[in-house]
């Protein structure tokens, strides 16, 4: 059998190469010199509106009234233009609303993006997408290695299990060569980046043709969509629980909001599987986030679709995501709750 290494020099070369790659995240952190903004630059828009997110985080400085941060479920459910228009009308001034959408699920990615935002701009209310009941991944977000660098977010991994820390370090290692390249040149911007908030999906349910539906939301009590403790009968905490990885980053988000004096709204997005439900299902440990400055929000399916004929129910969904019909309906029903919250936090 051939030896693994031809000589001591060969073995040392292979060893140094591996050591260099594995230690590169730490080396880059120690060397410094590249702004975090570079991490967000040049990522394809298929992976999330990162160029838009980068500009919102690093190029603007003005305070934000409402910041939405979450996955595509949130992006497809919130029409920023409606929120801005309705809140501005209710509050009698121009309200600033920003949406930071990332593709694919992962409260870790949502947390890091929200943290970078809050560390650069003051935010009154952070609306954070709750992990959907269908999402159970205990691994890092698939784009985490691009956006997050070793050492940039002190304390973010405190309390996380060893296996998850190791997986996160693996992400740092995977992303480190790209970060190292930033020492030589800046990342080019994605020339195809064209994200604009509030563009609802014109797709029917699971490939069916899109059927526009008039949106006429029923008059509902906005306060019933909010829970600041466990007493709201419309919220049930009996759904299969979050895994430790998801729970860790949700807890970190609560910490983050409190540290910055930002009011946190954890928002449950509607799912087609909740058809007819009179309550909003939450994972068991979700109730632990409740406390000063934190509320859970969600609209029971039976209430949201009260004025929709049963045979038209699926015309408001694309799949697990809402389409343009669902986005308009959900946003118009949720915005009064947001206004109620804003008034409460003044």
């Amino acid at each position, binding site marked *: 059998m051939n030896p693994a290494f*031809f000589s001591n020099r060969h073995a040392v070369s292979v*060893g140094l190469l591996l050591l260099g*790659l594995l230690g590169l995240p730490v080396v880059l952190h120690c060397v410094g010199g590249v702004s975090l903004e570079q991490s967000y630059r040049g990522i*394809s828009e298929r992976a999330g509106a990162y160029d838009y997110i980068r500009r919102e985080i690093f190029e603007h400085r003005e305070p934000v009234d409402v910041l939405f941060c979450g996955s595509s479920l949130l992006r497809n459910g919130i029409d920023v233009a409606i929120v801005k228009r309705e809140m501005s009308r209710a509050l009698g001034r121009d309200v600033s609303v920003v949406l930071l959408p990332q593709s694919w699920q992962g409260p870790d990615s949502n947390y890091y993006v929200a943290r970078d935002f809050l560390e650069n701009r003051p935010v009154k209310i952070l609306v954070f997408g709750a992990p959907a009941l269908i999402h159970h991944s205990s*691994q890092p977000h*698939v784009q985490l*290695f691009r956006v997050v660098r070793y050492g940039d977010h002190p304390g973010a991994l405190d309390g996380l299990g060893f296996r998850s820390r190791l997986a996160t370090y*693996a992400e740092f290692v995977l992303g480190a060569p790209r970060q190292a390249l930033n020492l030589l040149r800046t990342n080019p911007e994605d020339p195809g980046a064209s994200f604009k908030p509030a563009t609802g999906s014109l797709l029917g349910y699971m490939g069916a043709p899109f059927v526009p539906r008039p949106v006429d939301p029923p008059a509902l009590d906005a306060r019933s969509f909010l829970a600041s403790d466990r007493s709201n009968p419309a919220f049930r905490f009996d759904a299969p629980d979050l895994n430790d990885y998801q729970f860790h980053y949700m807890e970190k988000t609560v910490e983050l909001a409190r540290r910055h004096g930002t009011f946190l709204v954890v928002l449950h997005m509607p799912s087609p599987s909740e058809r007819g439900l009179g309550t909003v299902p939450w994972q068991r440990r979700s109730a632990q986030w409740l406390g000063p400055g934190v509320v859970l929000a969600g609209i029971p399916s039976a209430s949201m679709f009260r004025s929709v004929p049963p045979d038209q129910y699926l015309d408001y969904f694309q799949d697990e995501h809402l389409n343009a019909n669902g986005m308009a309906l959900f946003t118009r029903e949720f915005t009064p709750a947001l206004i109620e919250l804003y008034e409460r936090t003044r």
Partner: protein
Amino acid sequence: MNEPGKPVNPILTACVVTLCVATLVLIFMLPFDSLVVDLIYQGF
């Protein structure tokens, strides 16, 4: 190739093999999609 009578230092070999194993462990800790989805949507 090794010169006759000068085998590769076994401690050195063990260290490099350990690094190889550590690299493999980290690769398997990565979400599969981090590699595959990225190649599909992002390219290098």
